[in-house]
């Protein structure tokens, strides 16, 4: 509000009047871009998270396509080995630290308070801090493009990452990225934990909490448990590089294996940090679109916690080819096997949820139903990799590349797209185009499988990962060409969804409050929700509060504790 003469006069009159009324800490609401820079509203922060992480997703995707172009033919010469190692390192780092992990913070920021019937996160300013730490982490990392990108892969194994071998600043930029995004995730996680423990609606006991919220709670605890290890490791690497310490340098009495233990003590839980929220989204979407309660709510919630616990005990299965005593490795083989059990529980419960449903074939369901099918491939290849005699052949080959992408793309990214199509109407008030959405799904699905299925075979026949070229005599040309063609299809599929978002945000059909007949409280409020989320928070009586409310509305009775928001009749 600009100060007009009448306004000023009114203020001076008010000041002369008695008793004097003074308001402390009341600031004018900024507008335009300043409103975004200064916001502490969980929904705006959520949108900024989603926007920034999708931007990084596209950057990481471009890097992936350059890698695929280089490998499309034997003895490729599109990029130099230096550029190639930079691309490999940046692609992996971007997708993991700047896309999949923080995109969940984005969805969780927007939807956890809405789903539990809260009006904001527990610590709104801390919440803004987590976003800005992430943004600056990304900027610090991509700044390395202007001098020298890191070249030691997303795992930055010592001693290759030490200053003797990579003296340029790229690895330092990587270290700062880990620290900044790590802090961002850490304060974010503490915020989610505080919010979920303390701010749930009346009646929402642990047994009535949405499964996505369960997964975010587990994600947060895992972050708190795992991040300190990597923070310590990268600090040691930084002092090794610049201050003469020898933590990872065997010549000075250090041990390169220490890096691997610290890295994977973080790195394996990180895998579950990236996949559990996708499992959570699927557990929300499948019952809504099958119009059927989730099958085995307690089993899925318990499996989430079990996976997280076991996930902290399997890290050395990434180190089966290192000089480590056999007994230790056998322990890690067993614990890795055990994880298959709770993961299986989830998959079986999801497909049982679809069974005898009344399934609405909408785009979110396409992505959500594809996830178990693709993830089961990644899960099976994971079990195979855990059998450590077989791992001797498969370790560090394209089989591992295929495995990680079935888990992270077929699992996490399909889950992210399911969430995007499911929640876009709530965030924007408009529907995404169904036609374009389904087309995007099919192009992505075909492209994804074409890219990564053949990489299993490439690995089995002896193609190591992270190689910049290969001779024609190796016989991998066919696999690689198919993979490259698939990757471009996949890229086109992703861009179709991006176009869908850009077009629909202005021109999409109006969504109303509850276009899917959802089960959880975010569908109770308007689309997009007002700043305070809810005028009145209903009392929760089951896992599906919205179903209860719709039932009472059908009966003609005013649902208890609700007045303000009308319930949409659906589409």
């Amino acid at each position, binding site marked *: 509000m600009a100060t007009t003469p009448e306004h000023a006069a009114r203020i001076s009159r008010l000041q002369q009047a008695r008793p004097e009324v003074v308001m402390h800490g009341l600031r004018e609401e900024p507008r335009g871009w300043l409103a975004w820079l200064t916001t502490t509203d969980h929904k705006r922060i959520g949108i900024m998270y989603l926007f920034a992480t999708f931007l990084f997703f596209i950057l990481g995707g471009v890097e992936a396509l350059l890698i695929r172009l280089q490998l499309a033919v034997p003895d490729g010469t599109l990029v130099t*080995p*230096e550029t190639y*190692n930079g691309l490999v390192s940046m692609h992996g780092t971007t997708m993991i630290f700047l896309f999949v992990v923080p995109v969940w913070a984005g969805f969780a920021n927007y939807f956890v308070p809405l789903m539990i019937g809260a009006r904001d996160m527990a610590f709104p300013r801390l919440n803004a801090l987590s976003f800005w730490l992430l943004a600056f982490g990304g900027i610090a990392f991509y700044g390395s493009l202007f001098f020298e990108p890191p*070249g030691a892969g997303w795992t930055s*194994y010592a*001693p*290759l990452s030490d200053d*003797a*071998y990579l003296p*340029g600043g790229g690895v330092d930029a990587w270290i700062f990225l880990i620290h900044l995004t790590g802090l961002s995730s850490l304060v974010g996680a503490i915020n989610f934990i505080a919010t979920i423990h303390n701010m749930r609606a009346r009646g929402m006991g642990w047994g009535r909490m949405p499964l996505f919220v369960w997964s975010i709670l587990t994600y947060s605890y895992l972050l708190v448990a795992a991040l300190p290890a990597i923070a310590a490791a990268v600090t040691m690497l930084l002092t090794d590089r610049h201050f003469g310490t020898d933590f990872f*340098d065997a010549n000075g009495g250090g*041990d390169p*294996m220490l890096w691997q233990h610290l890295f994977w003590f973080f790195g394996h839980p990180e895998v579950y940090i990236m996949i559990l929220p996708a499992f959570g989204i699927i557990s929300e979407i499948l019952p809504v679109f*099958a*119009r*059927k*309660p989730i*099958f*085995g709510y*307690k*089993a899925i919630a318990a499996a989430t916690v079990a996976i997280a616990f076991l996930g902290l005990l399997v890290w050395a299965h990434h180190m089966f*080819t*290192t*000089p480590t005593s056999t007994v230790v490795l*056998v322990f890690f083989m*067993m614990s890795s*096997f*055990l994880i298959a*059990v709770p993961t*299986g*529980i989830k998959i*079986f*419960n999801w*497909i*049982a949820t679809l*069974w*005898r*449903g*009344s*399934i*609405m*074939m909408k785009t979110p369901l396409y992505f959500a139903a594809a996830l*178990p*099918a693709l993830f*089961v491939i990644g899960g099976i290849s994971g*079990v*195979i990799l855990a*059998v*450590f*005699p*077989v791992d*001797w*052949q498969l370790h*560090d*080959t394209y089989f591992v590349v295929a495995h990680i992408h079935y888990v992270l793309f077929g699992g996490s990214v399909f889950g992210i797209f399911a969430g995007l199509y499911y929640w876009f109407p709530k965030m924007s008030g408009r529907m995404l185009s169904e036609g374009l959405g389904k087309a995007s799904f099919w192009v992505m699905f075909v492209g994804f499988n074409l890219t990564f299925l053949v990489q299993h075979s490439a690995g*089995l*026949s*002896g193609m*190591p990962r992270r190689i*910049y070229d290969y001779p024609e005599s190796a016989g991998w040309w066919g696999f690689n060409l198919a993979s490259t063609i698939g990757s471009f299809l996949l890229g086109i599929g992703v861009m179709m969804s991006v176009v869908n978002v850009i077009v629909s945000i202005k021109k999409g059909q109006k969504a109303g409050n509850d276009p899917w007949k959802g089960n959880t409280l975010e569908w109770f409020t308007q689309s997009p929700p007002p700043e305070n989320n809810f005028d009145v928070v209903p009392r929760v009586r089951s896992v599906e509060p919205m179903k209860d409310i719709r039932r009472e509305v059908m009966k003609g009775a005013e649902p208890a504790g609700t007045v303000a928001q009308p319930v949409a009749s659906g589409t």
Partner: protein
Amino acid sequence: MGRLLRKRPALGMALLSGVSTAVGIVIVLAIDWFPVQASTASPQIDTLWDVLMIASVPVFVLVMAVALYSVFAFRAEPGDLSDGEPIHGNTRLEVIWVTIPFIMVSALAVYGWIVLDDIEAKQTDPLIVNVTGQQFAWRFDYPDEGKVKSTELVLPEDRDVEFRVNTDDVLHDFWVPEFRLKTDAVPGLTTKIRLKPSRIGEYDVVCAELCGLGHATMRSAVRVVTPEDFDAWIAKEQQSETDGGAAAAGGDEAAAGKQLFTETGCNACHTLADAESASAIGPGLDELSADAEKYGEQNDQSPEEYVKTSITEPDAFLVPDFNAGIMPADYAEQLSPEELDTLVKYLLSVSGEEKP
């Protein structure tokens, strides 16, 4: 089938899954996944793989069958707003799908452990081979066979071999896909790996751990030969090592220089027509004599001094378009002063020649 699926979906599904599983198993067993089997561990590991595939197919088929069947059979008609069956769960089913996978993975773990034990079993009188990785080449030496040194790995058929793997610089990974075994080379540690070659032929040692710019080209030849050929090769190598010393002292410096060039791993990064290397990670050396004159003059060095400094202190002067920190800086320790002189002379003598 269609009628059965509509009337008794569970039974129809079971039948369909059974048939798909059988077909799937036939397919996964028919595919030739791996390179040839060249060690006694290979058949064991391949069998383990087959068992894993057989166990995986039914799980995959079951999930796909139920998911696909559901989205086709239980699809709501447009305008149908009814709910699905209000089933909240089934404890007996939960118990079943916890127990069966648990038994499956436990059995596989035990089987995996047995295979592991078998492969790692103690050997009698193994041939010891020291393997050393460096950016970006492998070196092999045979401590019990007259300390023969070689850049190609030659192994006798049907004799136990114990590899002791080390590295001069960063992590590498010693892998022969046909042997099915790989192990990391870790600075400061010696990794042991045992195997018995079982098939005569030529294969590649591959580096499987990202070790820098030349990672993709870090390959060496492996030859598995008959025991007689192996003894002959050892004898010949011992002879040529004495000859090599004599040649360096006496006359054939070019041959000694070329041998140093490949043995030290220079060929992994530098193009040099005379030594048949064509890698482009470091500057090409075919024009070295002209370059050495030009850059030497810039640095007030003779061409010989320039080449020597470039080998021992690679970052002292950088050829345009190439960066610091890429070439290992420890050649002054790896090579004796005489070897260094031989290498420098060799490089200056073969570069800049007219090539047919």
